[in-house]
């Protein structure tokens, strides 16, 4: 009977029902799209933020007398591919080895690095393209990156200071090297000579050695838990921390694969990223809440209008002996059916909207997660029930004696 009442009620008020389903569908579509955005925004924005450079630096661990006597310590170049073997390996977007040595004759520092190198990964067909060009994408080279071990770049600062131009020859590491280009890095590299890592290692007799590794990694925004000292964590907490993509846990995992290393987040970068992501997520939550509220108000208004037309019907139900539960059941069932239909339509709409949003904002589609369908239906049911609250309250207050006699 309830099914019959609902079916006939829907068919009898096609326009009002359509308006309510559209209200719910639009609200759900916006909420689901924002939700899809929020699922993906961390990785998408984090990826965008990676253009600001490395957020983790791996350096040699200096302990005991080595620290006191100022001995130089190095990392092994051979350990670099291991960065792509850690738990969060897919979050490692770029790795740049850096070897910094001092050239006494030039009274300047010389930096050796990879500009663009494809490293083979164990068990994977495709190599990993990395180097300074991915970790420090803002580097601007006038001329070209050194080809072979007879060329070097001059930082823009040292080039001006020593009046060096492309094509000039300069004595670095006891050899005459041709300046193949001028580097404008906007940092301390501007006052260095910069060359291919292998060249610098060769010139200064440091084969296979590097001073540090700059790592660019996608991270999860830091929260209070992330700042907890791992040494004080329980086993369960440690596992949770280790398996969350915090910059600290990724740094810890890098430390484990680079022999004799200490890995530290570059805090200004990591914290700025965390702040941006947290604020974006908050913004999305607020927008989602507003869209849900707007949809609930929409359905509430339409339902009240519909109820006003059905006052006599409600009064009759009560007159026939319908109790609170039975009256609520009729209207709540209607709301839930509207929610179901609105949720399904809203989900389909959200696929289009989130795809459009993804392409407009990030130039790529947002990842469509399967859980969005049940979430959409759940959201639309919440909207519908919220929207139905006031009309149902109103329905329960209807005085059948007055209405059935012809008043309101």
């Amino acid at each position, binding site marked *: *009977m*309830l099914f019959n*009442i609902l079916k*006939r*009620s829907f068919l009898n008020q096609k326009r009002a029902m359509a308006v309510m389903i559209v209200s719910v569908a639009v609200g759900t579509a916006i909420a689901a799209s924002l939700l899809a955005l929020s699922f993906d925004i961390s990785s998408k924005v984090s990826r965008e933020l990676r253009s600001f450079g490395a957020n983790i630096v791996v350096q040699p661990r200096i302990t005991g007398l080595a620290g006191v006597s100022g001995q130089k310590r190095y990392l092994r170049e051979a350990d670099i591919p291991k960065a792509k073997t850690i738990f969060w390996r897919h979050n490692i977007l770029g790795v740049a080895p850096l070897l910094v040595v001092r050239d006494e004759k030039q009274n300047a520092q010389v930096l050796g690095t990879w500009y663009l190198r494809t490293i083979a990964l164990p068990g994977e067909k495709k190599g990993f393209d990395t180097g300074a060009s991915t970790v420090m994408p803002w580097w601007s080279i006038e001329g070209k990156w050194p080809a072979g071990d007879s060329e070097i770049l001059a930082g823009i600062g040292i080039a001006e200071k020593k009046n060096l131009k492309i094509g000039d020859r300069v004595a670095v590491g006891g050899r005459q090297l041709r300046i193949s280009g001028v580097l404008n890095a906007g940092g301390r590299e501007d006052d260095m000579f910069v060359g291919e890592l292998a060249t610098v290692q060769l010139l200064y007799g440091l084969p296979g050695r590097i001073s540090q590794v700059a790592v660019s990694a996608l991270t999860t925004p830091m929260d209070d838990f992330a700042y907890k000292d791992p040494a004080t964590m329980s086993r369960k907490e440690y596992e949770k921390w280790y398996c969350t993509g915090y910059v600290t846990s990724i740094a810890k995992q890098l430390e484990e694969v680079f022999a004799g290393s200490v890995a530290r987040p570059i805090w200004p970068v990591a914290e700025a990223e965390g702040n941006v992501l947290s604020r974006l997520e908050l913004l999305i939550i607020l927008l989602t809440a507003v869209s849900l509220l707007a949809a609930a108000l929409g359905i509430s208004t339409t339902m009240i209008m519909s109820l006003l037309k059905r006052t006599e019907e409600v009064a009759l139900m009560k007159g*026939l002996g319908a*109790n*609170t539960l039975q009256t609520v059941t009729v209207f709540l069932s209607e709301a839930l059916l509207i929610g179901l239909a609105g949720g399904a339509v809203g989900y389909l709409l959200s696929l289009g909207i989130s795809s459009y949003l993804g392409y407009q904002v990030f130039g790529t589609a947002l990842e469509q997660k399967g859980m969005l369908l049940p979430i959409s239906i759940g959201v639309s049911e919440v909207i519908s029930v919220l929207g139905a609250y006031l009309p149902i309250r109103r329905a329960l207050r209807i*005085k059948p*004696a007055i209405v059935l006699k012809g008043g309101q």
Partner: protein
Amino acid sequence: MSFITIEKVSKEYATTRALNGVDCTIGSGEWVNIMGPSGSGKSTLLNILGGLDRPTEGIVTINSTDINRLSEDELARFRRETIGFVFQQSHLIPYLDATENVMLAQYFHSIPDRGEAEEALKRVGLGHRLRHRPAELSGGEQQRVGIARALINNPNLLLADEPTGNLDRSNTRNILELLKELHAQEKFTVVVVTHDPFVSQWARRVISMEDGRIIRDEPVRS
């Protein structure tokens, strides 16, 4: 023992006193008409008997239950188990057909039974109108559906508020004959509110009201 006992019942609205200390008893199986001009309080009394309104003062006992002591949900239950209503306007749900309108009362009472609902409609002479919607029925037919709906749960008390108010004389006679026949068969108690002297001829007793008081309570001479 009386089926209905009304003791010193008053009902006040914001600016008016609709009932003023009404006392009355109605026996089980009686057919009583309440008559009076507009504003005399007869509909208010009927609504209080039906549990659709509550008195400001006084006690109403139906079938040994003091209905003023019942909560809203208890009152709803009492209504669906004990009382059948027939209204001046038939108040049928426009999008349900005749059978479904009768089944609605079954639904709120217990379990809808299409066969029983159709049987009830046949008893009121609408066996050929089972699938018709209210808009496809005449005024008299709509009121017959209303009567079938009121009686489908075998109530002990039938309350009718101007049940023939919207009908012509011929249809009025038909409806009252039908009620009389059903009353004779089922032996339920009937209270009809009307201002039409023609309707009062069908009752065994007529209570006349004016200004919220009973001014006359007398049997009808047949």
